[in-house]
């Protein structure tokens, strides 16, 4: 262990640079501002903005991992300890997006029946309104009776 401690001190020189860390810090701030800007710049095309923001986040994450967490200067054990976990989380997310994330793009009638009311500007609006009418009949049953009573009295 002591041997490695001293070797760590040997390469102190090329990563003990406070200027480098300050540069990384500024880069991170600029990238945060960029992802904030992309939210407004691509407001009408959210998917483009999502892609840009995730790309920026990945770049930020790499900067933090490589420089702040010193992985740039570590020995090869870094791959052993980080790759399995990273791969598993990457595949988890990548598999969830098409499988579950995109399932709403094509809504079956069955599903449309059971989903929440979309906002007026929400997607699948036309779909839902027809369904609501349907449900309205079932739900307002007690009032419907009242309605009949009223009609009788009016005629």
């Amino acid at each position, binding site marked *: *262990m002591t*041997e490695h401690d001293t070797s760590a*001190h040997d390469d102190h020189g090329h990563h*003990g640079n*406070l200027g480098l*860390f300050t540069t*990384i*810090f500024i880069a*991170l*701030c600029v990238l*945060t*501002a960029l*992802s904030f800007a992309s*939210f407004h710049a691509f407001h009408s095309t*959210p998917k483009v903005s*999502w892609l840009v*923001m995730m790309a*920026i*986040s990945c770049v930020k*994450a790499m900067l*933090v*991992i490589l420089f*702040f*967490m*010193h992985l740039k200067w570590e*020995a090869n*054990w870094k791959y052993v*300890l*980080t790759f*399995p*976990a990273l791969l*598993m*989380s990457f595949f988890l*997310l990548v598999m*969830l*997006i098409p499988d*579950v*994330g*995109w399932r*709403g793009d094509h809504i079956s009638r069955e*599903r449309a029946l059971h*989903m*929440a*009311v*979309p*906002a*007026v*500007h*929400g*997607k699948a609006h036309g779909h839902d*309104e027809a369904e*609501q*009418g349907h449900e*309205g009949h079932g*739900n*307002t049953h007690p*009032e419907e009776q009242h309605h009949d009573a*009223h009609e009788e*009295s*009016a005629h």
Partner: protein
Amino acid sequence: MSEEGHSHHLELEYHPGLPLPNGKLFMWLFLSTEIMFFAGLLGAYIVLRFGAPVWPAPHDVHLVEFWGAINTFFLICSSVTIVFALEMAKRGASAAAKGWLLLTLILGTIFLGIKAYEYSSKFSHGIYPSKPRSRMHERADVNYLSAVGERLQALQSEIEGSVGEGQELSETGRQRLQLVKRLQTGLVQWAASTAALNDDPVAKQQALDNVAYVIYRGHRSAADEKYMQEETAALAQQQAKLTKQKSQLTARPDAEGEDAAVAAEQAKAVTAQLALVNSRAEVLPELQEAHELGLNEQYPWLKLPMVIAGGNMWASTYFLTTGFHAIHVLVGLITFLILLMPHIQFGPHNAGVIENVGLYWHFVDLVWIFLFPLLYLF
């Protein structure tokens, strides 16, 4: 072999495991489990967020992008200060290292403070991860309408019960009670009767949607605004029609026997309907006055149930992911506090401790780097 090595004065040292200190190895193994832990949480968010038919816009749920961005900034700052603390410790400058540690602690505390402020602004608007505290409903249906009615009923008995026998209500109490009673008829009963009397399912739904709309303006709805604008004229028309009907029915002194009984019954129904229309007309200016904000914002004490489609799922994922992240921040802050104890002196011999704590802290920063765009900007 060993003899040969000996003759060349070669001393080999046996190293078990990976070539890094045990503490650092532990921290990296721990972090790799943490990566998967947060990947699971983010995965749950993706399933629920993108699999949901509707998801509230940040504005609907009082999520302010600005605070998220500011918090990101503070966390990045704290990440760089802990790096400086490590560098100072490696150089043997204990006081400087502790100064940077203290700054990290302060920045992390600011992060948590802003987070707490954000949470409280959700709570104060009735946005909680679960019932019964959460006042969010998914859709404006009869269940929602009855929940609004129940809340108004509870408010009425609360205000009436706040004074003892023979005591007078205060001025605000009286005004509140009046408003509650006006809403009970002009908002809830009116919507129930409009929905029941209409054969058109779209009109039925419009009446219920309007209740949700006047209570909470999550999003601007052109249809609801038009409905509100045209309602004054429509109500006046109805009032005129019903008044005429009523006068026709009551002005039949010649009617006798069964005819008279039918006429009286009809007159009663028309009178009831007219009273309801009148109560709606009475409360309508108030509803239109709360136009920009919604009743819940205009009168915060009302705390009426509101419709935020997808809001419950949003709250569950938001509080779960940011909550676990906040717990991690808290753990980091506690370790900083421990390291700042006065008897600890930092130097090259124990810089590894700061390095390990720093690795953890950077990971917390990493998680936020992904959480911020996913939660605030997506």
